[in-house]
């Protein structure tokens, strides 16, 4: 699928708490992400990042303003968008292969085509030997790779990733992040990825959006001017440190 743009226009979310008190959780926030860009979203805990992802994914309606995918206002889960959350969120009764194939199965793709698509993906995910394993037998990193496979198999035009590697150890997350970069290099999907890890954000993205404390607004928009393709060696680069420092600054001032 060709990549699609993502945007928010004066987007706000206000939750109504039990008891009737209202809690402004997000915005107003406005930004535009052109098709094919890799953007990371950082900000203090509770500032509304997950909420923003859910609205863009069409899982909850905005209180005010609009979320846009491919310049269309989001009113239901857009077919061009793949979503991945912090928990791998696998179905424990399905094998690795069947978990990855789920989106295709729901879309009515035939069994042979599903098999073909999944088996093309498995080696790239480092899961070649685990097609028939159940999620209960996987490590956290492997489970997250399955979840990544499940979102990639749809070949979405945009990926929404909410702290996808947040539960993994530093080495595993760096590796799986680089693997994601490789997928992105081939498919050029638009990516909006929430992370708490500034290092990860700088290593992976073209651009970092920094949100303020709740209700989150756009506090800074930092361009990551490092060359592509990226490698671990880039993290020792002087520019890397400068960008990371400016992002950290923005978060502290936010």
């Amino acid at each position, binding site marked *: 699928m060709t990549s699609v743009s993502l945007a928010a226009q004066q987007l706000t979310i206000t939750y109504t708490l039990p008891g009737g008190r209202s809690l402004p959780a997000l915005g107003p926030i406005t930004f535009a992400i052109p098709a094919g860009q890799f953007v990371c979203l950082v900000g203090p805990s509770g500032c509304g990042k997950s909420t923003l992802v859910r609205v863009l994914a069409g899982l909850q309606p905005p209180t005010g303003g609009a979320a846009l995918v491919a310049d269309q206002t989001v009113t239901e889960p857009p077919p061009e968008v793949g979503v991945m*959350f912090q928990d791998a969120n696998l179905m424990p009764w399905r094998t690795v292969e069947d978990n990855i194939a789920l989106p295709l199965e729901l879309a009515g793709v035939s069994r042979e085509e599903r098999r073909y698509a999944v088996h093309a993906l498995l080696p790239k995910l480092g899961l070649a030997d685990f097609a028939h394993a159940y999620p209960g037998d996987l490590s956290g990193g492997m489970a997250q790779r399955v979840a990544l496979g499940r979102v990639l198999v749809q070949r979405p035009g945009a990926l929404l990733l909410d702290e996808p590697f947040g539960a993994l150890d530093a080495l595993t997350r760096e590796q799986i992040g680089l693997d994601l970069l490789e997928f992105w290099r081939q498919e050029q999907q638009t990516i909006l990825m929430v992370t708490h890890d500034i290092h990860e954000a700088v290593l992976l993205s073209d651009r970092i959006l920094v949100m303020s404390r709740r209700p989150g607004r756009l506090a800074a928009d930092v361009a990551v001017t490092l060359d592509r393709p990226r490698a671990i060696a880039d993290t020792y680069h002087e520019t890397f440190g400068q960008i990371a420092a400016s992002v950290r600054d923005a978060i502290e001032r936010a």
Partner: protein
Amino acid sequence: MKGSRRESRPAGRAFVPLLLPVLVLLVWQVIVSLGVYPEFIIPSPAAVLAKFVDVLRDGRLLANTWVTLSQTLAGLIIGVALSVLLGYAIAKNRLLDDLFSPLIIALQSTPVVAYAPLLVIWFGSGPTSKVVTSALIVFFPMLMNTVVGLRSVPKSLRDLMLSLRATPWQMFIHLEVPAALPVLLGGLKVSATLAVIGSVVGEFVSARAGLGWLINDARYNYDTPLVLVAVLMLAVIARVLYAAVGLVERRMLAWRR
């Protein structure tokens, strides 16, 4: 889940589960040999065995077993089907939940034995009243399990399915059913044994056939060996049904091991 798999027994200890039954038989025989109780109170194992062969030959055992078994199965199927349907509706719909909950809680805590005579008055002393009793005794625990099972479907998986634009039917068949299945099958296992109890309770109240009726009839004639044969047969039915559900469970929940 993991680790719950039962370790297989070391080869030399295959006899361990047999120890207790053999011991019981021995104690039983000793009591009879001492002649403390008359035969019609505690008959010898040999007398029970002889009776078993007797009623097996003249066809009474199998005929009555079939009556009880068919009532039990009919009650089980009807009770499970209705409770799963209503349970699904209740789990999905707040209004139905509020509507049915008080009644269900009240009925659930009433012992079946108490209203079984009513069912016989309403449905006659034929098999229908037994099927209804079985269905009712199965209904409430199965209903609870259905509601609990469906409510235990993780919200995060629902969101996943929604983000994949799943239809309500896909949501049901690919998420709700498999997610609730462990709890449902757990309920079915309990229900299988309860259904046997339902049939027998019905037969105790009034019947013309069945193992429960056979027990009552034998008791009036002081035919204690026959009582024991019928009781053991009931135990076998319950155990076989339980094992059958267990088999289904192991096949369908292979992922848990």
